[in-house]
């Protein structure tokens, strides 16, 4: 599996240009999927993600995108 494949398999994607590192997404992910990172949060526990999109909705910087379940499973 290439790195790119791996990234695509991830349930959430971060936009490094927009993320300001507030860690709101990390704090409020109900499944503990995310963890503080250096520039943007990291995905500590990708399989736990329920695709609830709370991270996406709460992110003040539109820097998180949760992929649709279907898309994620492909």
């Amino acid at each position, binding site marked *: 599996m290439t790195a790119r494949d791996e990234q695509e398999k991830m349930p959430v994607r971060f936009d490094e240009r927009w993320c300001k590192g507030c860690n709101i997404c990390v*704090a409020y992910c109900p499944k503990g999927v995310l963890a503080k990172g250096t520039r943007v949060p990291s995905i500590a526990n990708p399989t736990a993600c329920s695709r609830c999109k709370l991270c996406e909705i709460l992110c*003040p910087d539109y820097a998180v995108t949760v992929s649709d379940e279907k898309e994620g499973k492909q």
Partner: protein
Amino acid sequence: MSDLVKKYLRTEKMPHIWCPGCGHGTVLGAVIRAIDAVGLDKNKVCIVSGIGCASRAPGYMDFDTLHTTHGRALAFATGIKLAKPELNVIVLTGDGDLAAIGGNHFIHAARRNIGITTICFNNSIYGMTSGQFSPMTPKGHLATTAPYGNIDRDFDLCDLARAAGATYVARSTAFHARQLSDLIAKGMRHDGFAFIEAVTQCPTYYGRKNKIGDAIAMLNWMKERAIPVKAAERLSREELKNRITTGELYRVEEPEYSKEYDRMVAEVMAKEESR
């Protein structure tokens, strides 16, 4: 979200100027989800704001957008709505912009029941000018112009809106972003003056000055204090102190202002013709 962001925001202007953890971004997100849910035609939406951090929102939104003078958004918006009633006019404003300098336009727009959806980004502080207290800063709290604790009382903005004549009034918070966008969407569908108070966080000034902590701590603070309107009805005035009542607080159907104008014109013309 990213699809909606691309569809409704001017992504080339991003990242926005708001500080890390500032709740304004979250509230703006709720606004665009509401616009999408209601299915407004992008070319028939006009976003109007005053001056302040919150009032910078329109610059990021891909509609006709108008960033006016401090406090005057609703007065400009009134001109737009009356001149071109087919536009969906949305005012995005801060607690200082709306409730301090803009208070008069607020109560009069509500009184007229003009079809404008007004969303107040209430962070209880003047963010743009670096942390002076606003009419929404709770008594006793600190701000650069209240170094010994604020002695001013704050407004209940929603009650004020209702008493002034608003026909749709709701409140939610940045933490309750889903509920918030639902309530905004309802406001947009409402025919008349709709007011939605969005409680949000300014970690940079309000949070820091009052040692509430970072954005996350402030969101927790909202979470803890929020109480749905149904539950609030069972509590006493005293018990509701320091609580944030959320949900649709008030709604009645009354003729919208620009429609009333048209009705008046129709009557005048009918009389003329029947002469």
